[in-house]
């Protein structure tokens, strides 16, 4: 199986002759196949124990009426009742709608800002790598901590955000509340999410832009294609797989968004920003409706699993480039 025939070529600097101890010989007895399984098994075992086993348990619970605040009641199987309740519940559909609006508007905004930034940074002006690192900082932070400190920045009276808005528009700073107003709160979570994650889209788009070989643009120059035409015929189509990667991942992440929004608005005012994960947390950990929330969780799992499948396919496609 080795490709090396000349032992002379096989010497590696810094590698001494291995000790021929009994241990070494015993290990040598392990076939490659045994080693492969030995190496993969612990990871698979951990994932089975921490992810899959609980998942199967939850699937079972989703057919019961278990409520942890009344766990003295005997476990009663209710068949598909939980699923029927969820799918016919107007509130659930409303949460899904809120989530969809959040996912679509935040991802769209991040694509515009991120792709725009990537195009600008790709001009390779002096100092671009320093400023890129600065721009990347928000996405490395803890979403919960971000949600928390934005509540200070967005306070109507004392926060600098409203003050700046009032400086530019003349609207009194205490006349509006970014987190407390039904008309503004959905946009606030989109705004903070974009502040945090536009750099993510930017970084991936930048990789896409850099993967385009120069000679294509040079050929376009020779053919006298306008910059506008070059953008639509070369830049955009060749960046699309990367853009897809960013969009899919952000969409999945925002679909399950919990931490940042939970601390920024905690689903309020009322339930204007109650995303499906926040709703799930309320059902499972405040109302303790375990059977019902297990069913809702299963529905979310299936959705994310499907999206993850498409994501991995895109991932492999980009990898081949």
């Amino acid at each position, binding site marked *: 199986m080795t490709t090396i025939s000349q032992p002379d070529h096989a010497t590696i600097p810094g590698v001494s002759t291995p000790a021929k101890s009994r241990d070494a010989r015993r290990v040598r007895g392990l076939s490659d196949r045994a080693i492969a399984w030995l190496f993969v098994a612990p990871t698979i075992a951990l994932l089975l124990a921490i992810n899959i086993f609980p998942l199967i348990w939850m699937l079972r619970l989703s057919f019961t009426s278990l409520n942890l605040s009344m766990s003295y009641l005997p476990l009663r199987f209710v068949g598909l009742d939980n699923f029927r309740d969820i799918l016919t519940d107007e509130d659930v559909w409303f949460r899904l709608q809120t989530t969809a609006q959040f996912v679509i508007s935040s991802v769209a905004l991040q694509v515009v800002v991120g792709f725009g930034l990537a195009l600008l940074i790709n001009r390779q002006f002096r100092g671009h790598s320093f400023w890129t690192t600065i721009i990347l900082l928000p996405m490395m932070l803890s979403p919960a901590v971000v949600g928390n400190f934005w509540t200070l920045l967005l306070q109507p009276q004392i926060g600098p955000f409203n003050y700046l808005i009032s400086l530019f528009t003349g609207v009194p700073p205490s006349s509006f509340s970014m987190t407390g107003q039904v008309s503004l709160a959905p946009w606030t979570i989109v705004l903070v999410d974009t502040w945090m994650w536009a750099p993510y889209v930017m970084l991936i788009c930048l990789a896409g832009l850099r993967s385009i070989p120069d000679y294509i643009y040079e050929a376009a120059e020779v053919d006298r294609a306008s910059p506008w035409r070059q953008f639509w015929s070369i830049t955009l189509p060749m960046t699309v797989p990367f853009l897809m990667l960013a969009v899919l991942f952000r969409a999945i992440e925002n679909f*399950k968004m919990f931490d940042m929004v939970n601390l920024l608005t905690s689903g309020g005012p009322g339930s204007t920003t109650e995303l499906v994960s926040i709703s799930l947390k309320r059902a499972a950990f405040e109302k303790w409706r375990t059977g019902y929330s297990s069913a809702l969780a299963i529905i979310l799992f299936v959705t994310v699993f499907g999206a993850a499948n498409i994501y*991995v396919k895109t991932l492999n496609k980009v990898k081949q480039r």
Partner: protein
Amino acid sequence: MTAAAARSTAHSIVEASPRTKAFAGGLVILYAVITILPLLWIVATAFKSQSDAIAYPPKVIFEPTLEGYVNLFTVRTRQTPDFIAKLPPPETWYDQLVRKRDMVIAGPSKVVPRFVNSLIIGFGSTFLAVFLGTLAAYAFSRFRIPLADDLLFFILSTRMMPPVAVAIPIYLMYRQLNLTDTRLGMILLYTAVNVSLAVWLLKGFIDEIPREYEEAALVDGYTRLQALRKVVLPQAVTGIAATAIFCLIFSWNEYAFAVLLTSGEAQTMPPFIPFIIGEGGQDWPAVAAATTLFVVPIVMFTVLLRKHLLRGITFGAVRK
């Protein structure tokens, strides 16, 4: 000819004109400055007094004080001025600072234990995830494993699951196993989440190490394990370090599992910070101080990682 032609056409995308560059640079710098302002505001708030922090209009220029940091690390009780006057003179600068506000220090706050939890859980889960991940990644990279693609997809898909949904059965399971609110429970959970990233990232790094190196070592009489330890691992050190930092950042920042599965003993910083409360609501200077201390390591890691960030956020798929 091509390079010369590209340079001669000044408006080409290949080599932007100086004016285009200046314009692009200006816009990017403007965005960078706007994006960093919220963070700077928090760092500044940490050095404000309570009244400066909630002043209207918001104060940009203020007299810096360490009160926020003192409040973060201590629990204080309010006393009458008479009582404080009777006390022996303050021994330390922070005693003095607190007494100016008619308060005395009653003891240390919970921030240090929470910080320690974050460190133990972060490093514990990172070590385990990188250890397991390296083994699995090596196997996926070098051996023919049946259904490898499906296994890899399975590994990645576990990371994509909504944390709140995962927390429901984990909560029930941990209650049975007495792992609720324990560091061990959190380490295991974070290891499971991180190991998927570790396998994918490390597989990418190990794929890049030429197989010939190991094969040469095998010819020299090394066993597989010796070849792994003495040939592959030294080559993969940068990749392993980058992977470890990514895992550490995830555990450090994680909130959903932490808030749902811990309440005291094993609580980490993210669920703790929002509940740093003073008299009448959140103690903003103390919250800002905690946020600053919490974020500084992340900023340093981001600078260290900047060359590998792209890999990290795409599970190793996009490299350059």
